């Protein structure tokens, strides 16, 4: 007697929501590849400067304008500075400005988006007008003016101002999502039980949007890095220290292109592209993990 065929049991049916998300997350190639690249570069930025021979990436250590070799993995600049040392120090600054700018922009976007979406009415109108104004004014132009007048610039100040100018699109998106959530039953119940506005927002609405907020932060992080690189390139970067954008700027300033020193301008841009591209791809993967309709398998 053969046994009756058993219906296949989906292994995820027995897991809690958090574990189920993790189950799909681990099996999503885009998410894995994206995060792996970002974490690898982050580790390189954190550990790299520590294992270098000397601590100052701007020191003149080697032969001038040397191509990559066994001694200097990414070659040297026209002044004889080690490009690999500059690269790993620059990764640190780039991650720092991305995290700071992204966090500040995310915080502002959440405050404004939640308030406008939840309250509606006049608050919404005013905040909407404010968001539109900041949205239309080009961020780089404002940052140019601000940074030009700052005497001494640091990575944290740069991150602060980038955060202050890049939040509008995120605020709009959060507001739209909050609109859909605020008419739900659990929000009405919370309101009936006398919870105050911000408590409802942070206890009821935000946790239901947590995946969305996380993806928003990733996009703001990537955007911050790109804006910071542009600012550095124009010459309004941190006044001392190294960043990937500043490396591109000095490569441009010292005619690396005309002299054919590709090892000076290719690595920093490739680093930025790798971080931002990996973040975008990981974001798509996260979208698939959180939204079952998008899953392919």
């Amino acid at each position, binding site marked *: 007697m053969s046994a009756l065929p058993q219906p296949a049991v989906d292994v995820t049916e027995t897991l809690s929501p958090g574990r189920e998300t993790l189950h799909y997350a681990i099996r999503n190639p885009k998410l894995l590849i994206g995060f792996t690249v970002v974490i690898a570069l982050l580790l390189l930025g954190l550990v790299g400067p520590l294992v270098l021979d000397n601590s100052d990436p701007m020191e003149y250590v080697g032969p001038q304008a040397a191509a990559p070799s066994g001694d200097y993995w990414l070659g040297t600049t026209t002044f004889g500075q080690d490009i690999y040392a500059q690269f790993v120090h620059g990764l640190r600054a780039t991650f720092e400005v991305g995290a700071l700018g992204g966090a500040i922009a995310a915080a502002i976007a959440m405050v404004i988006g939640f308030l406008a979406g939840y309250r509606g009415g006049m608050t919404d109108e005013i905040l909407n007008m404010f968001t539109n104004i900041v949205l239309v*004014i080009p961020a780089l132009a404002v940052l140019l003016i601000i940074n030009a*007048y700052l005497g001494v610039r640091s990575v944290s100040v740069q991150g602060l101002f980038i955060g202050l100018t890049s939040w509008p699109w995120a605020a709009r998106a959060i507001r739209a999502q909050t609109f859909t959530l605020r008419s739900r039953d659990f929000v009405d119940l919370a309101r009936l039980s006398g919870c105050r506005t911000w408590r409802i927002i942070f206890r009821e609405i935000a946790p239901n949007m947590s995946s969305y907020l996380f993806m928003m932060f990733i996009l703001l992080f990537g955007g911050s890095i790109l804006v910071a690189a542009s600012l550095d390139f124009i010459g*309004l970067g941190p006044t001392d220290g190294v960043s990937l954008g500043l490396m591109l700027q000095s490569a*441009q300033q010292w005619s690396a292109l005309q002299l054919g020193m590709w090892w000076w301008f290719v690595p920093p841009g490739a680093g930025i*592209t790798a971080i931002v*591209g990996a973040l*975008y791809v990981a974001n*798509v993967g996260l979208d698939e993990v959180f939204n079952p309709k998008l899953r392919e398998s």
Partner: protein
Amino acid sequence: MRRYFARKLLAYALTFAVAVTVNWMIPRFMPGDPVASMVARAGSSQPEAVDAMRSYYTRLFGFDQPVWQQYLHFWSALFQGDFGVSIWVFPKPVSEVILDALPYTLGLMIPAILLSWFAGNWLGALAARRKVLDNTVLPASYLLTAMPYMWVAVILAWALGSKAGWFPLSGGYSLDVQPNWSLDFLLDLLHHWVLPFLSLFLVALGGWAIGMRNMIIYELESDYSSYLSALGAPQRLIRRYAFRNAVLPQITGLALQLGVLVAGALVTEIVFAYPGLGSLILAAIQNQDFFLLQGTFLFIVIGVLIANFVIDLVYVVVDPRTRTGMAGGTA
């Protein structure tokens, strides 16, 4: 219809007012003293010269007047078209310097924005059709959109300009040619235009392709698509309707991306030493020419506002629902 546009114009006027106020406020509220830095730049040690320069710059910046008077003066100068005098190419007025550079920037940006938008949408729609195309176009687009504009510019300049020698590396036109209206000069201009245009085009293309592909997939899964295919409509017809619906958010997306595209154009010009606003900004920063910088900021804001208004007009033309909404009907 008139009320809709009146509201839009009011919003843009308000934005312009805020931009002008920000422009006026920043020198006065940033740490540090622009007058002191200008005086220090001259490097003179004679006290009479230093005093004379200090009083001159104070008058130039308007710091000797009460604050509200400075603000009103700023606005009245603006409406007279007076953006101040450039310190870098003293005594040329800022408006003249900017208007000299503006055609190059516009000639670079407008074709790049329009062509990349059309080509990107077309590519994204194509990728949404077949899996094979999707698997090549999508990763390439993500790669392109993650690249910083100036890096793509440098790579293109190196590959196509330096190594292959097909295109010149810098300038708006050759050094040995004088600007005139001959065919030779126009061809030379075009020759110098290709690489900056290409770098702007490629990066922007990636973004539009990704957006369009996602929108088309979303539209192809909607009710009307399923209904049409159940009725037996040819796939091409369904795709055409899906494309039309998917284009609408892309138009709004264009308005949102303008700031990013302008920033990209500025850094690309710096890489190629293209004589547009980007190189002007670089020179202004390096020479601490604050008035030129503020003038370029205002010009950029005005340009972006005009572009936003044009896009609003286009949207009203393209989407019939906005027109019925304005006439009081329901969509």
